[in-house]
């Protein structure tokens, strides 16, 4: 359907203003004013200028999976007739508002495809994630800014990927051609911009065509799931690969496909909440059992599990889906420059060499 508009660069904030009147809007922006390289997705306020020329430091993951969220509230109540009797009342009410994320990249949205499988396609469905997912739209850029650490093409995505997106935002001369891909998107796109000229449409087609052909990253992941299984018990390999790791957890926090969480109760007097909060498989406590036993006591075990989870276990469980979106954030943010491409890429190399 012909749901295309052109938004000129100098009319972008106006369009976003209009959009934000209809729906909660998130854009990539710089946190605070002074002099920071840091960018992430923030709620839009009138007049804000989105930063669309670079991948954000933090992905939009927190929009669908907040870092901390209340799963349920509980309250202890004493029976006035019998003060020794305390009863509990529970409630899981939560409010989800429809939202639109403008300016995500294909890698960001690809990350959600893994989360979708885990949170909504298993034997149990996570209603908190599902409700947010159903109520959130994504206007995804055609990405022209892949850099040396990106490898989205290696994981089944690419700079023009629109899987999971509602709009495609195509950079052209002087602005963006925005293409509504879904019904919901259609209903929002009116009056945000002008009908694109023939020239703009042609340019948009060309941009998409070139981006679709462009292969980002040269990592070849075919057979990696199997190579990982073969390599699992080779402690020397993992020792070498993880020697620099600080077990700091940055990679898991900036990763669009990392979703591991913990559930804890926090109580003050008679009332409290059960919270779900981000956890990291890179932390020692992650698998620490009450008895004191820890099946993953060292960073070697923990990093191996992380690599295995993304490149072997998730593909095994979900028809070959790779649990990584190739955004390269883990590489860029790692304080010791651990490169997951190396670690997974060399799995196969060594598997071929005779020991």
């Amino acid at each position: 359907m012909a749901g295309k508009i052109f938004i000129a660069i100098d009319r972008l904030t106006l369009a976003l203003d209009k959009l934000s009147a209809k729906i909660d809007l998130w854009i990539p922006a710089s946190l605070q004013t002074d002099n920071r390289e840091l960018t992430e997705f923030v709620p839009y306020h009138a007049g804000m200028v989105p930063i669309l020329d670079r991948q954000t430091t933090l992905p939009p993951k927190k929009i669908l999976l907040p870092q901390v969220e209340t799963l349920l509230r509980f309250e202890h109540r004493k029976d006035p007739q019998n003060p020794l009797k305390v009863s509990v009342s529970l409630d899981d009410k939560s409010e989800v508002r429809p939202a639109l994320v403008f300016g995500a990249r294909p890698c960001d949205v690809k990350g959600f495809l893994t989360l979708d499988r885990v949170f909504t396609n298993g034997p149990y469905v996570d209603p908190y994630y599902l409700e947010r997912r159903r109520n959130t739209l994504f206007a995804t850029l055609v990405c022209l800014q892949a850099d040396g650490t990106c490898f989205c093409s290696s994981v089944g995505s690419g700079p023009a990927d629109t899987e999971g997106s509602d709009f495609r935002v195509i950079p052209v001369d002087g602005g963006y051609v925005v293409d509504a891909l879904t019904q919901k998107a259609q209903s929002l796109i009116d009056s945000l911009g002008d009908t694109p000229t023939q020239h703009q449409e042609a340019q948009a087609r060309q941009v998409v065509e070139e981006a679709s052909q462009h292969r980002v990253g040269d990592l070849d992941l075919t057979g990696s799931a199997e190579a990982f299984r073969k390599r699992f018990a080779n402690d020397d390999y993992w020792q070498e690969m993880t020697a620099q790791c600080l077990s700091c957890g940055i990679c898991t926090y900036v990763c669009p496909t990392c979703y591991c969480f913990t559930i804890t109760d926090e109580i003050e007097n008679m009332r409290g909440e059960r919270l779900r909060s981000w956890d990291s498989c890179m932390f020692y406590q992650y698998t620490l059992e009450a008895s004191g036993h820890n099946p993953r006591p060292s960073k070697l075990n923990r990093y191996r599990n992380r690599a295995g989870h993304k490149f072997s276990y998730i593909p095994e469980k979900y028809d070959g889906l790779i649990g990584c979106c190739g955004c390269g954030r883990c590489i860029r943010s790692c304080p010791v420059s651990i490169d997951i491409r190396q670690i997974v890429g060399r799995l196969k190399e060594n598997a071929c060499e005779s020991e």
Partner: protein
Amino acid sequence: MRVNKFLNNPYLPELATVQEIIQETANIRTLRVSLDDKEKMSEFSFRPGQVGQLSVFGAGESTFVINSPPTRKDYLQFSVMRVGEVTQRIHQLNAGDQIGLRAPLGKGFQYEDMKGHDILFIGGGIGMAPLRTLLLFMIDNRRDYGDIMVLYGARSPQDLCYTYEFQEWKAGGVNLVLTVDSEFPGWKERVGFVPTVLSEESPSPHNRIAVVCGPPIMIKFVLFGLKELGFEDRQILTTLEKRMKCGIGICGRCNIGSQYVCLDGPVFSYEQITGMAQEL
């Protein structure tokens, strides 16, 4: 009271009330609970070996095997060892207190495949808890199973659980062999570590399935013993334990390779275990 916004919210526990508490040993307590919603309680069905996430609101949740069999549903039983934040609070509960329960979770024992076999239960300490549910289930369906032997050991007579039921087990057609690690005044049963007594008893592996649960060191040596007696990996079952949070295969932490203990377990055969990533 339970206000439920999401239909089928797997994170929202059912409210249950503690009916009875039995102090098994110095640090193990058994809770008998029943769901507050009477209809749900009468409809509650589960397989022996499935687990539940017990909530003490304010402290958190912890995973325990449903200790009672599906054939006896006056209550749901859980045996809890006091080791940490949540179990500490569980040990402070009294009859009449309300808790939360998310159950049944996980896969239980494939008892259908065990029919017609001789069964050998080997338990150590609190390890008897997951075995009890299957044991009682089999006693209640006695004709379906052959010879049932229970080898149950603990450090001392005071560390044995379910002592008040031993007569009932024997009356149910079970060959019960009890042992403690060393001599104790008044103790008239066997003396010796479980793996040692196992070798002494020397049960035949023919048509027999062994179900083992206990401290890791005991399991290790029992495994050697069973292999020496000629048991194959597929004849040996156990329940694995891991730190668990969601219990529904989402939070990611209880995995062993691509298997989740909360979804694919906690019951596993040794054949399955040897095929898994070795990080127990």
